[in-house]
Structure formats: C-alpha cells, structure tokens
C-alpha cells in the first residue's frame, strides 16, 4: 500500500511539532528522574543537575562544530557532556552525600535527560547554521521548567508518602486515595498534569499569535 506523500509529510510535520513542543521537552527531561524524586530535596537536586546539563549541552552544541568535523562532532559533544555530568555528580557527592547516596544512578540519568532533551529541541547533538533555532534562554527555561516539575513532584510525593507537610502531620492523608500520587505511577500522573498545563499555555500563545 503506498502512502500519499502529502499525508506522510503532514504527519511528519505534526510529529516534529509535537517532539519540539515545550511540554514534550519538559516531560522528556524530567521522566528519568520521576521514580527517584521522592522528596522535595531530591527533586530540587535532580532538577538542578538537569538544568546545568541542559545549559552545558547547549554551549557544547555551539562550540563543538567550530573545531570538530562532521565525523567527530557527535562523539566529541557526547564525551564533553558526559564529562560535565560526572563532574556535577562529584559536586553533589561533596555537597550533599545523603541525597547523592539516595539518588544513585538517577543523578547521572537526570543529567543525561537534560542533555537529551536539548538534543531533541535543536534537532541534533550539535547545532548548525540553518538548523532549528534554540537559544540559551530556551534551554534555560526548559531546564527551569523541568526543575520546577521535579521539585513539585518531589514535594507532593513526600507529602503524600509521609502524610506530613513541613513536619506537620495531616491525619488521614497518607492513607487516602490521593496518596497514589505519592507512588512512582502517581508521579507519572503528576508529570502528565504538568504537561497538560504547559501544552495549554502553548496553545493559548499560539492562538494569540495567529490572531
């Protein structure tokens, strides 16, 4: 069966638009850290690592093509990003050993999530002239949104899991049905709610632009 090339092209454009929407990027960046964002503290730390990785990935994407050829661009950029994530992990280990131990493998995963979302946004590991434009402000805002998402998810997971809010016990909270949002599956639901809010905001902005 032969697909109509116009239909295929339109579908590709819609998928491309979806994959580069703010909601998709924030979900892609925050997803690896969902299962480990079990406290406010853990969510904040993972979000910060994600933000730093995304900004460094943005910087490397622009620096690497200046001195690396087409064959070397991707491995050089990936090695530089991996080096940054390792160094950030060292910093977290020194600054907060408890959360470093708690997060384990999820810390570098969060960093890679940040870098990978940047790769998706700019359409590649490195950025070329004429490619998809993605400014530093875009990278920082996407990272900051993912940081906020992980912080909120960590806070709600901690509150619903322990039944306390900043040390004050709330009777019946931990045993109530909404405590599902404190489980890993519930964290995914919370991230979906964040994506809905972001997508709604993008739709409003798009309609305003069309007028």
């Amino acid at each position, binding site marked *: 069966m032969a697909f109509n090339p116009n239909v295929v092209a339109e579908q590709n454009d819609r998928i491309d638009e979806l994959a580069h929407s703010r909601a998709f990027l924030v979900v892609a960046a925050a997803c690896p850290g969902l299962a480990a964002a079990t406290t406010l503290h853990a969510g904040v730390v993972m979000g910060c690592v994600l933000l730093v990785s995304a900004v460094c990935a943005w910087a490397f994407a622009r620096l690497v093509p200046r001195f690396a050829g087409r064959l070397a661009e991707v491995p*050089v950029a990936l090695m530089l990003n991996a080096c940054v994530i390792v160094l950030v992990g060292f910093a977290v*280990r020194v600054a907060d050993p408890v959360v470093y131990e708690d997060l384990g493998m999820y810390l570098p995963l969060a960093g890679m999530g940040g870098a990978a979302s940047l790769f998706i946004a700019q359409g590649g590991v490195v950025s070329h002239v004429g490619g998809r434009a993605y400014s530093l402000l875009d990278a920082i805002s996407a990272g900051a949104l993912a940081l906020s998402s992980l912080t909120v998810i960590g806070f709600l997971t901690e509150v619903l899991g322990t039944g306390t809010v900043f040390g004050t016990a709330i009777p019946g909270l931990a045993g109530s049905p909404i405590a599902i949002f404190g489980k890993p599956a519930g964290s995914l639901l919370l991230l979906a709610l964040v994506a809905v809010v972001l997508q709604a905001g993008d739709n409003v902005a798009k309609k305003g632009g069309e007028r």
Partner: protein
Amino acid sequence: MRSSNDKRGGWIARHKNGAWYTLVLIVVVAAVCGGVPAVAHYALTKPFKASDAALDEAVGGAQRALLFPDAGSFTEVSAPSIEGLNSVWQADTGDYVFDVQSDGYHGPVELMVGITADGAVAGVQVVSEDETDGIGSNALTDDYLGSFAEMAATGTLTVDEAASGEIHVDGVSGATFTSKAVVGCLNIAFEAYAQLGGN
C-alpha cells in the same frame, strides 16, 4: 591582510574534516574527558572521605533513632576491643547502641543492637548484609529480629544445643548461617555491654 586568528580559524576549517585531524581530536578529547574527572576524583579524596563519614553518620543516626526514639542525642563512646564490634554509641538516656558484625553465609552481617540502661535488648536493626534473598534473609526479618526484644542482655546465646552457661534460642529453618550470624552479633553486643559495666 589576513590576521593570525583568521589563519588559525582557516586552518581548522580546512582540516577539521580530515581523517588524521578527526582521529587526533577524538583521542585528545577522550583523554581530556577521562583525565579531568580522574584528576578531580583524586583531588577530592579528602572531601569524599568527609562526605562518606557524614553519610555514615546520617544513616547510623537514623537507625539509632529507630532503636531509641525518645533519645535526644547519641554520643560515640570508646568501644572495647572485641572482634566484630565496630562502634558503641550511648544515648542521653543511658541506653547503648552497638554496631556489630558477624559472618553470615555470603559475608559479614552488620547489625545495630540497642540495649537499654536496664540491661534488656531494645531492638535490632540491619545495617548491611548480603544474604540470599528468600533464604538467609528470612533470618533478618522484623519478626525474627523482634523476637530478641526485651531479652536480658546477658549470657551467651546459641541456636545449637545449649551447653553449660549457654542459652538456646530458635533459629530460622533453612537460614542456619544467617541465624548464627544474628546470634553472634547479639553475643558481641552482650559482651561489650558487660565490659562497659552493664549486667
């Protein structure tokens, strides 16, 4: 007239897609990206040790608080020289927490044994173990460890037939090595408690 900067940028632009340039660049970047974390890891040896100590203290503090929730603070005291005794902490209430280890089936089983000032076992917490899940780990359950609560912290416990001066306790069927490790830890804690002036 072209500046030296233009000549350098021009040279890179002309050669960066070449095979040799690509090979050398990847090797150099790999060396840098491997070397920088290695040097950083070496340079941060002392901070890492300090953070590991802080982590041990945080984890240990949490487990000590589980054994004696009413205690306000714990102070590490000088531990008697007993094989298997890692550390001794005393709560402000006079109770003791002994960090002990004994060989299980797959290596050392490290436990935290709480003994009250009255000379009774307050509880047992698992610090680390590598026993077989579903077999040896059956001797590290809350039920089995909880069976030692309120036991007098005196004498020598054994899961085998008790000889003179020994007290027989039940082990867990199929988890003999681990049961013996738990009992061994308790015996070390009892001996340390006795040397510190208890019972």
